[in-house]
């Protein structure tokens, strides 16, 4: 199977943050919204086409993976994405400190949150009204 990637088109982004909300609800904790794994940055000056989306790039030589002492970060060969295996995670948050892009996000007493492309059907893509996100 050819691996799909989460493509980002920031110039189309309206910074409506639907992606964040979709992500939160796609990864709930105890039925409540979790920490979004994607972040939309509206341009400070409000210029159209200058908004930004920051989401995990599933790096080839990932800092999170090499920082994890428990081998809890694992690349799924089907989706090509790096998954956090919660049952292996010891919650030391080393990955959070290691990711240079701010894409491993801490959740107080929980496991860090990490984009897993929703197992191959990312919610953020579905809920983006501006087609700024594509999974292909």
């Amino acid at each position, binding site marked *: 199977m050819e691996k799909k990637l989460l493509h980002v088109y920031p*110039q189309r982004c309206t910074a409506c943050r639907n992606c964040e909300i979709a992500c939160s609800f796609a990864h709930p904790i105890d039925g409540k919204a979790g920490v979004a794994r994607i*972040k939309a940055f509206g341009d400070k000056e409000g210029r159209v086409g200058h908004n*930004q989306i920051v989401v995990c790039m599933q790096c080839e030589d990932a800092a999170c993976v090499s920082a994890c002492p428990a081998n809890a970060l694992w690349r799924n060969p089907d989706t090509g994405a790096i998954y956090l295996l919660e049952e292996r995670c010891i919650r030391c948050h080393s990955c959070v400190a290691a990711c240079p892009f701010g894409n491993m996000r801490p959740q107080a007493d929980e496991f860090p949150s990490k984009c897993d492309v929703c197992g191959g059907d990312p919610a953020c893509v579905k809920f983006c009204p501006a087609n700024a996100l594509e999974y292909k």
Partner: protein
Amino acid sequence: MIELTIDGKRVQARKGEHLLAIARREGVEIPTLCHHEAVEPSGACRMCMVEVTRPDWEGWSKLVTACNFPAEEDLIVRTRTDKVMQTRKEILELLIARTPGSQLIAEMAREYGLDHPTLTVGELSEKCILCDICTRVCQNLVTGAISRINRGVEKEVNTPFAEVSDVCIGCLACAKSCPTDAIEFKQVGLERTIWGRTFDLVPCTQCGAPTLPKEQAEWLSERTGMKVEEYFVCVKCKAAQTARTYENIAW
């Protein structure tokens, strides 16, 4: 691949794969307390006991711990026989007596119909069930700051001589992986205290928010080759920084 039976269902597995892993893959629930995927199974809590037999055992069966029993061809595994359920219930009663204050144990005990424990109970403040997860995690994955000292009923988890450990990096993995929340820690502002040692959380070089203890950063740096300072930026600032970088990239 081999085939075995779990609760009447034929399932496939690798030879030698642990029964617990197979059961979980097949959606068969087996309770555990001392199991953690990040470390080798220990077989200490005995909650994952299941009954196994084989067609050639002539009706003879035995209780084994699913967490470390290796699968073999034609093994017949039963996870909820009377003997299994009774043993788990008794173990929970022993644990309730040890840690009457633990919510998790109380909940599990209720599930097993243990409404009126009869054994003499210990102190309410005791929460540790000596499952060994924290010490296995710290010894095998982190720096080995804590261990189980003494023997038998005297056994407890602590740092050497119960003194402040100079190898602890304050990562909280022990406390966070504890199933009964028995390890206390405190985090206020830029301070984090665990095992009697207070760590300074390095403030984010950009916004001043707490990041991580310098000791953890140094430990990480040694393992990954990243510079220590690279760890001292908080997630928010790192993401914003990433966004700013994107600005300058032609898409």
